[in-house]
């Protein structure tokens, strides 16, 4: 695999009411799949959104193929965005458009204008088939008529129809049953293998992340605490990594946190976190 850097996060800071990202630096290589793990509210989705300017960092920069997302011209940013597709947590399909039009939105406006209608239909149908959906059954339906799992797969179809170079997945299996979650994880792997697309997957599904990723990153309190291969992740002796890698360790950490909170209520806030990672 080439070691060419596709996405470069450079010392990214973002603060809302409290700091969310506190100096995140990360290089994502061309064609690799990297998963970002972390407890809720640690800034995983915020980091993903800074990649295409949906959230602007307070400090730092994000570069795609060496070009800054935040110092690009309007047209430059539009071109960068067209190379990237974002799969939203709840699919974010357009309610008023049917599935055909929703997937077609994944194509460039120029392509929609110039492409023959029959060819466009074929491309959309192929995208839907690639995510295990029957075009004949879903094309004319509205998003509200589909199940959660099907909507997520339509979101995937919309992401791949334009043949992007980068796909960003924001919690793609959250809210799905294990069967549908495994299906979506398999699809992410097969898309990456087939198209050699660079993928960043923000997820809480640790087994899925370890199976599909070349590298895994762990975000904690707005900072990257671990970046490495799935094997390094499994072998890590960092207490928080161990809590993520091993359900028993996670359960022990949670138990210890509860015991600490009930027996020592007068202690300063923040100490609970120290215990939670100090298994």
């Amino acid at each position, binding site marked *: 695999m080439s070691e060419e850097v596709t996405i470069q996060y450079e010392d990214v800071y973002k603060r809302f009411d409290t700091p969310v990202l506190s100096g995140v630096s990360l290089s994502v290589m061309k064609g690799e799949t990297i998963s970002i793990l972390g407890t809720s509210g640690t800034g995983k989705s915020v980091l993903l959104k800074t990649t295409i300017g949906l959230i602007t960092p307070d400090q730092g920069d994000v570069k795609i193929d060496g070009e800054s997302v935040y110092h690009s011209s309007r047209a430059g940013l539009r071109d960068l965005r067209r190379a990237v597709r974002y799969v939203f947590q709840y699919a974010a399909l357009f309610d008023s458009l049917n599935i055909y039009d929703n997937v077609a*939105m994944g194509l460039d406006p120029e392509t929609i204008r110039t492409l023959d209608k029959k060819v466009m239909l074929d491309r959309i149908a192929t995208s839907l088939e690639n995510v295990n959906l029957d075009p004949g059954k879903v094309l004319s339906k509205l998003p509200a008529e589909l199940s959660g799992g099907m909507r997520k797969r339509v979101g995937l179809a919309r992401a791949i129809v334009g043949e992007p170079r980068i796909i960003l997945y924001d919690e793609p299996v959250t809210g799905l049953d294990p069967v549908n979650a495994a299906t979506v994880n398999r699809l992410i792997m097969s898309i990456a293998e087939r198209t050699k697309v660079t993928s960043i997957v923000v997820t809480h599904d640790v087994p899925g992340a370890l199976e599909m990723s070349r590298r895994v990153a762990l975000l904690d309190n707005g900072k990257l605490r671990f970046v490495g291969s799935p094997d390094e992740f499994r072998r890590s002796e960092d207490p928080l990594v161990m809590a993520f890698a091993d359900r028993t360790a996670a359960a022990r950490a949670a138990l210890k946190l509860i015991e600490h909170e009930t027996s020592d209520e007068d202690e300063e806030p923040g100490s609970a976190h120290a215990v939670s990672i100090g298994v």
Partner: protein
Amino acid sequence: MVLVTSILTLFKSILSAFGKGCMGFARHVGQISLLIIGIVRSLLQGGVSLKMIFAQAYEQGIGSLPLVLVTAVLSGIVTSQQGGYQFSSSVPLYVLGSVVASSVVLELGPVMTAFVLIGRVGARITAEIGTMAVSEQVDALVSLGRDPVPYLAAPRVVAGMIVTPILVGVANAVGVLTGLVSARATMGLGPEGFLYGARMYWHSWDLFYSLTKAFVFGFMIPVISVHMGLITHGGAEGVGRNTTTSVVFMIITVLVVDATFPPLFLN
């Protein structure tokens, strides 16, 4: 000493709240200005779909027509009845025609139609776009390389500017007509007398004034409602909060614009 400290604390809180209010207002004004610039730019670049403008015009115009007609009918009847009540003793009754025509055309037609559009169109736009914002559909649009302004804002604003003057024109005609019918039915003032009075103090400028006001309302209502929709966050609660705030902003804006029109155009 305690009293002085309390007064100082109160003064500080009032000043702080005032400062926050001013900053919030300035932020809205800035964001709305950028939205307007974006709309103008997308129109100049031809990036706005005519199909979407027609769809919005149909929704805003045909959809609002029944309620606009009801409001216009009632405005005409009420103006005619109250005017007739006041003029019955000393003022010639035919002056009622002028009062009804002027009241409806200069004030009631545009303002009542604007209120109907705020409730029916403005609130809907904010709720619709607000829901899109909280369900990440607006982010999805941006991530797909589309600018939300030509897709979501421009068609609604252009449709508002086309449709509102037409609705106000219809409301004016219906209001004056029902005023005439009401004057005949309850006060015995015939159409000739009513129209004689109406023509006596009529200026062609009044209609231009009325339609210009409608055009400004038709611009401001969708602009504010789209802006409030786009800045929505915080789930269903945020949609509810911003829809209410949007309606309040639109009502205040309509009343302020309405108050600035006479000194600008009637003196």
